[in-house]
């Protein structure tokens, strides 16, 4: 099951051990098996030795040894990514940042915290309890994913509608580049002077270097939060309500839609009180000053009424708020009870075309004889069709990938983009020509080459290439020159 490593690996391991110490390097077959994949459905990656540095200098040592041996390196946090960004291709040195999990400094006056890349997202917010501040990006995996991973993928989450995705919350980053040099990108205060290399680095998926310390911005907790649950007899009405709320000048903290299959799956296991006869529910979260929030609740109720809302439930207290969110946040888990495998897709379409695109996606997936469930960030048009399947049934993965490709095409034809928050990784690199012209891609390639001229930082990710990644199977490849 575990493949043989290429010649020279013993010397590579010896040099890594010499640089880092025996406790920080593993190269056993079991470890390489585990580090061959991440949270995505992509299997077949080939990991080389895995390093667990606990300082910036040690990360630089890892990179230096990899360069000396002509090996690539792949950064990895918690490995919860969904696009294969941390799946290693061709036996690279895997640099796990999990031991760089210190919160170095919290400045509540300036609302900045310097953290290690291995700090778990939710741990930071927990650490800030009592300060009236929190870290705003809240991907559904926030209990496990790391801030280094959030930075690499420019992660989002339900509350990024109002607060912005990770890039808006990263002020500065200390980075080890692919020549093992250490630089700081961005500024703690104000905007970058000159080109915003911090902005380029965030979302770079580890192809531009490794973040070793991150200065994140801290967001004040809102004084008042109201959570509403609206139900509809059609998903079109729910989507129209979303458009209406934004058109009324409100930017809610979150706007989430779940379709009927999702409601049924969730209710069975969570009992969040979602109405089972509804075709869709819309969760609206409003926050801010008391007077403003009260007025916004009235507007949302009115927009809902204009769009044939069934009932509007305003959570009376924190317990009810949590229950409404519990249904949403456990949706994927509840779905896992239907079939053992799922493929969580991620595309973005114009908000005004949500209902139309969801209908097309459903039809396309059902044509491939798969179950599809929709739970999505409606406010920013971020679709998350969830394909549910049993990977043990022969031929299923091929159908899943074929349906995934159709979802991408439908989204792009509607004027959308490839990914809202999961990143491109290995999963979608083949689709990049659907969205970008050869000139666009060449410009992106030039940026990457400027950071990593020898192509050793997480190679084969993000940009399309003809090179193959180990035994990774079934990934869509779009013929060169195709541009929709």
């Amino acid at each position: 099951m575990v493949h043989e490593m290429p010649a020279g690996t013993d010397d590579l391991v010896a040099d890594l051990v010499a640089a880092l110490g025996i406790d920080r390097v593993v190269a056993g077959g079991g470890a390489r098996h585990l580090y061959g994949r991440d949270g995505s459905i992509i299997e077949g990656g080939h990991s080389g030795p895995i390093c667990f540095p606990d300082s910036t200098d040690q990360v630089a040592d890892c990179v230096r040894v990899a360069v000396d041996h002509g090996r690539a390196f792949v950064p990895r946090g918690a490995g919860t990514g969904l696009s294969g960004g941390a799946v290693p291709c061709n036996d690279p040195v895997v640099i796990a940042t999990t031991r760089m999990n210190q919160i170095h400094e919290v400045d509540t006056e300036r609302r900045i915290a310097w953290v290690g890349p291995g700090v778990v997202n939710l741990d930071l917010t927990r650490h800030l309890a009592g300060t009236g501040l929190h870290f705003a990006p809240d991907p559904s995996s926030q209990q496990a994913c790391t801030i280094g991973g959030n930075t690499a993928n420019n992660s989002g989450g339900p509350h990024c509608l109002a607060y912005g995705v990770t890039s808006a919350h990263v002020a500065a980053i200390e980075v080890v580049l692919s020549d093992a040099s250490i630089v700081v990108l961005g500024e703690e205060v104000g905007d970058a002077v000159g080109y915003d290399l911090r902005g380029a680095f965030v979302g770079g998926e580890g192809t531009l270097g490794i973040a070793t310390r991150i200065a994140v911005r801290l967001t004040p907790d809102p004084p008042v939060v109201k959570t509403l649950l609206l139900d509809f007899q059609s998903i079109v009405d729910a989507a129209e309500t979303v458009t209406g709320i934004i058109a009324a000048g409100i930017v809610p903290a979150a706007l989430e839609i779940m379709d009927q299959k999702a409601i049924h799956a969730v209710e069975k296991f969570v009992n969040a009180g979602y109405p089972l006869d509804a075709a869709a529910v819309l969760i609206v979260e409003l926050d801010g000053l008391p007077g403003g929030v009260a007025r916004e609740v009235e507007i949302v109720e009115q927009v809902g009424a204009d769009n044939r809302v069934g009932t509007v439930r305003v959570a009376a207290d924190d317990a009810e708020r949590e229950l409404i969110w519990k249904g949403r946040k456990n949706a994927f888990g509840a779905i896992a009870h239907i079939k053992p495998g799922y493929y969580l897709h991620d595309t973005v379409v114009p908000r005004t075309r949500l209902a139309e695109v969801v209908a097309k996606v459903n039809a396309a997936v059902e044509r491939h004889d798969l179950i599809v469930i929709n739970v999505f960030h409606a406010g920013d048009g971020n679709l998350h069709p969830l394909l549910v399947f049993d990977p043990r049934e022969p031929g299923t993965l091929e159908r899943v990938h074929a349906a995934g490709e159709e979802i991408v095409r439908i989204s792009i034809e509607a004027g959308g983009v490839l990914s809202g928050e999961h990143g491109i990784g290995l999963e979608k690199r083949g689709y990049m020509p659907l969205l970008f012209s050869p000139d666009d891609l060449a410009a992106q390639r030039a940026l990457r080459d400027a950071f990593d001229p020898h192509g050793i930082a997480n190679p084969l990710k993000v940009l399309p290439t003809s090179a193959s990644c180990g035994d990774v199977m079934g990934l869509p490849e779009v013929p060169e020159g195709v541009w929709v």
Partner: protein
Amino acid sequence: MSAFTTTAWLGLDDDSLTACVACGLCLSHCPTFRLTGDERMSPRGRIALMRAVQTGGVACDDEWYNSMETCIQCRGCEAACPAGVPFGELISGTRAAISEARPLPLHLRLGLWGLTRPRLLLLGSRFLAMLQRIRVLPRVPFLPRQLPLSGSRLPRRSEGDVVLFTGCVMDVWQPEVHDACETVIAATGSTVVRSGPGTGCCGALHEHAGLHDSAREMAEHVIASLPGEQEILVDSAGCGAALKAYGHLLGTAEAVAFSDRVLDIHEWLAEHDDSLPQVPVADRPGVIVQDPCHLRHVQGAHGAVRQVLGHCSEVVELNDDGLCCGAGGSYSLLQPEMAGAARDRKVALIREVSALSGANIVVSANPGCSMHLATAGVEVRHPVQVVAEMLTSADGVNGGATDGR
């Protein structure tokens, strides 16, 4: 690579193994992953490695065994898993399958055998207690500093409204916890009878160690020794989780009916809390709650603990999702380094929370946890002991707590 390269078919349920979708949400809830950052020490990693052996034909080597043997079996991952993977069953099945290839050390096997002989255990403990008193016994880390000379009171032969399950080690080393439970149960107006040494050990440690046959025999003995319809209350989280799982372990209608009678003491008290002491808010001491894994992740009874304590104390949370303290039954003996590191992390958090809140009482409803934390100098009491004390002092304040208030 190793002395053990036999390919083992683990006999695990294929659906349970496949249910893991490798999302990784379990990682931060796993104490050994938190300490090492290494996926071989994580639930997701352990499942992938089980799968590699069971269906991939990979041979077990030292790296593989180490991954399985370092699991504390706290089941924190199970509570966090969105796909409902029954990790507890998978790891206990794996431990059972490898128990022949990797026999337990002799001293542990002797110890586990001793637990099945409660009267012998009591005698042995009294002997050690006497040696302690005359100072010829060297300090053993996990033993209480002062072993009691007498065990818990013998069961009254009269019928009670409820049964208090007294277990093995706890009956010998922490009889004061049983006494406190009896006091508090009595305050609710109910009568209680103790299961006593005739019932003996629940077999939880044997089950964890992969000794399924012993565990089943002990379960059968416990069930046979406690006939009747009364509810069975348990003040040790590990034992309570084991008794509640007898139905699953034995698969008989009798065992299922027995498990249905079992309640954690706090679950029962939460239903009978009208007569518990109501202490004015200003007089409530701060109490830091350390949830035993088998209370929180397995039984889900941590809410009841807070409800019961909430009447007489100010509950202070550790806010770590009940991350394991590293005790894990016999784990602290088998994997002292990892157990010590998990404990040190927990102790540091307890001290931090104590400094911030001013609370200096720490409670945990499991003898393993309290003994393990005691080795790092943290005095840990049982939640019901705190209630019993407040009951005594509240008597003077509000004229008796049994007046139905």
